[in-house]
C-alpha cells in the first residue's frame, strides 16, 4: 500500500510539474544564437517587459525548420535565408522578419599552414585550404552554418562531395561539438563569431580570417502560421516579434559584447518579407 502511494505521488508530481501556469511559448533557435550568450541577456528582459516565458529549443537551422513544420514550436529564429523563404512560401510561417546579423569567421591552427590570413576574400582563403590541402572540419549537419559553408565552397568552384576525408572531415554535429573536433585535430573550421569567442576549448586554434561581407549572417524571426497549426500561440509569437524590433531590444542586441567585441548588429526594420 505504502508503495502504491509513493508511486502515485511520483506520477502526480511528474504531471503537475509539466502543466502550464504562466504565459509560455516555445522558440526554436540556432546553437550560434544560444552559445553567444545573447539569449541569457534577452530572456530576462522579455520576462520583465512582456511577462512571457520563452522556452528555448537549441537546435540547428535544419531541425528548427523541421520543428516548425510539425507545429512543435510557436516560432523559430534561424539564419538561412533561402530555406526560410521556402518555409514561408510553403505556408508554414506567415512572414519572416529580419532581426539582426552577425558574421562567420575562419578559425585555424595558429601557425596557419595554408597561409590564409591576409587573403582578400573568403573564397580565396578556402581555395588555399583546399589546394594545400589542410585539415578542415565541417559541421556536416544541414544547419544554417553548414549550408553557408557549402555555398562558399561552391563559390570557390569546388564540390565538397568530392573532397577526400583525409583532410575534409564532416563532423555531423553542432557548432560547439565541431569546434571541439577542430581543436582536437588542429584543423581549419568556419564558425560564427559568437560561438568562437565564447568557446572554452580553443587549444591551438586562432581566428585567421574575417570581414568579407559574404560572411554576414542574417537572423530572422518566423512565427508559425496558425493556418497550418491552429494550436500555436500566434499572439505570443507576434508579441515577441514586436518586442524584438523595439528600439530597446535592438539596443540591447547592439550593445552585447564579449571581451569588448560586439557580436550582433541589429538591423530590424518595419518591412517584412
Amino acid at each position, binding site marked *: 500500500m505504502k508503495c502504491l502511494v509513493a*508511486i502515485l505521488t*511520483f*506520477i502526480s508530481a511528474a504531471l503537475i510539474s509539466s502543466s502550464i501556469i504562466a504565459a509560455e511559448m516555445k522558440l526554436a533557435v540556432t546553437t550560434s544564437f544560444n552559445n553567444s550568450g545573447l539569449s541569457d541577456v534577452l530572456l530576462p528582459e522579455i520576462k520583465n517587459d512582456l511577462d512571457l516565458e520563452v*522556452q528555448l529549443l537549441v537546435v540547428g537551422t535544419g531541425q528548427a525548420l523541421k520543428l516548425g513544420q510539425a*507545429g512543435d514550436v510557436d516560432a523559430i529564429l534561424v539564419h538561412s535565408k533561402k530555406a526560410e523563404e521556402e518555409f514561408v512560401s510553403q505556408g508554414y510561417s506567415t512572414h519572416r522578419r529580419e532581426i539582426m546579423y552577425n558574421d562567420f569567421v575562419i578559425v585555424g591552427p595558429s601557425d596557419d599552414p595554408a597561409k590564409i590570413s591576409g587573403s582578400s576574400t573568403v573564397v580565396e582563403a578556402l581555395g588555399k585550404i583546399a589546394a594545400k590541402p589542410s585539415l578542415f572540419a565541417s559541421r556536416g549537419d544541414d544547419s544554417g552554418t553548414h549550408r553557408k559553408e557549402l555555398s562558399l565552397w561552391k563559390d570557390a568552384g569546388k564540390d565538397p562531395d568530392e573532397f577526400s576525408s583525409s583532410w575534409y572531415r564532416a563532423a555531423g554535429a553542432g557548432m560547439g*561539438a565541431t569546434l571541439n573536433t577542430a581543436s582536437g585535430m588542429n584543423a581549419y573550421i568556419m564558425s560564427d563569431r559568437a560561438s568562437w569567442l565564447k568557446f*572554452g576549448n580553443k587549444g591551438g586554434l586562432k581566428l585567421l580570417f574575417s570581414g568579407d561581407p559574404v560572411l554576414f549572417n542574417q537572423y530572422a524571426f518566423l512565427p508559425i502560421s496558425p493556418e497550418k497549426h491552429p494550436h500555436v500561440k500566434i499572439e505570443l509569437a507576434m508579441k515577441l516579434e514586436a518586442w524584438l524590433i523595439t528600439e530597446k531590444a535592438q539596443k540591447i542586441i547592439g550593445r552585447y559584447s564579449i571581451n569588448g567585441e560586439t557580436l550582433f548588429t541589429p538591423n530590424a526594420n518595419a518591412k517584412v518579407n
Partner: protein
Amino acid sequence: MNDIVEGMLSAFRLIFSLDADLFEIILLSLQVTLTAVIIASVIGMPMGAWLAVNRFRFRRLTIAVLNALMGLPPVVVGLIVYIMLSRSGPFGVLNLLFTPTAMIIAQVIIITPLIASISHQAIRDLWADYHDLLISLNTTKRQRIFTLVKDARRSLLTASLAGFGRAIGEVGAIMIVGGNIDHLTRVLTTAIALETGKGEFAFALALGFILIALAIIVNLAIHSISKTERASNW
C-alpha cells in the same frame, strides 16, 4: 588531465555553493528517472514472472526478443517517441512533447525490457525450486506469481537498480523528446552534453562527477532502506 582535477574542484564548489539551478537540474534528473524506474518495474517485474511460470507456443522467441530489446538504442526510442508525440503525430493533441512526462515515457520504454529480462532470469531460477511446492499446494497462477515476486525481491531490486543505472545516465532519447529546455526539461546528462558543446570541459566534468555521486547515493540509500548486505539478511 588538468581538466579532470579542475572538474573535481568545481564539482565541490558547485555543491557547496548550493547553486539553485544545479539543484533544480538534479531534482528533475531524479524525478524523471525514479518515476520511470517505478513505472517500468510495475510493468516489467510481473511480465518477467509471468514469462517464467507460463508455457506457451512462442515462449522462447518472446524471451529472445525481450533479451534483445535490452539493447534498444536510446536515440531510436527518442525519435519514435518524438514522432508519436509531435503535433503532427498521432498523440500530438496531448501536448506532451518537450515535457518531463515525455522524457519519462521514453525512459520507461528503454528500461522496461531490461527490468523484465533480469526479473525473468531471477524468477525462473526460483521457480525451479518452488515448482513442486506451489503445484502441490494447488495455487492459482496469480498466487504463484505473487509468491515468486515476493520471495525474489532481492534479485528484483537488482533489476530495478540496473534500470535506474541505464536511465540516469541516458542522454540520447531525453535530448530529443525533452529538448533540453532550461528550467523545464534540462537534466544532468543533457546539461553535460550542452557544456561539452560549449567547450566548458571542467564544468561538464563537474556535472558528470555529481551525476556519478548521485547514482552511488541512490544505490546506497535503496540498499540501506531494504536492509540488504547485513548479517543473516542477504
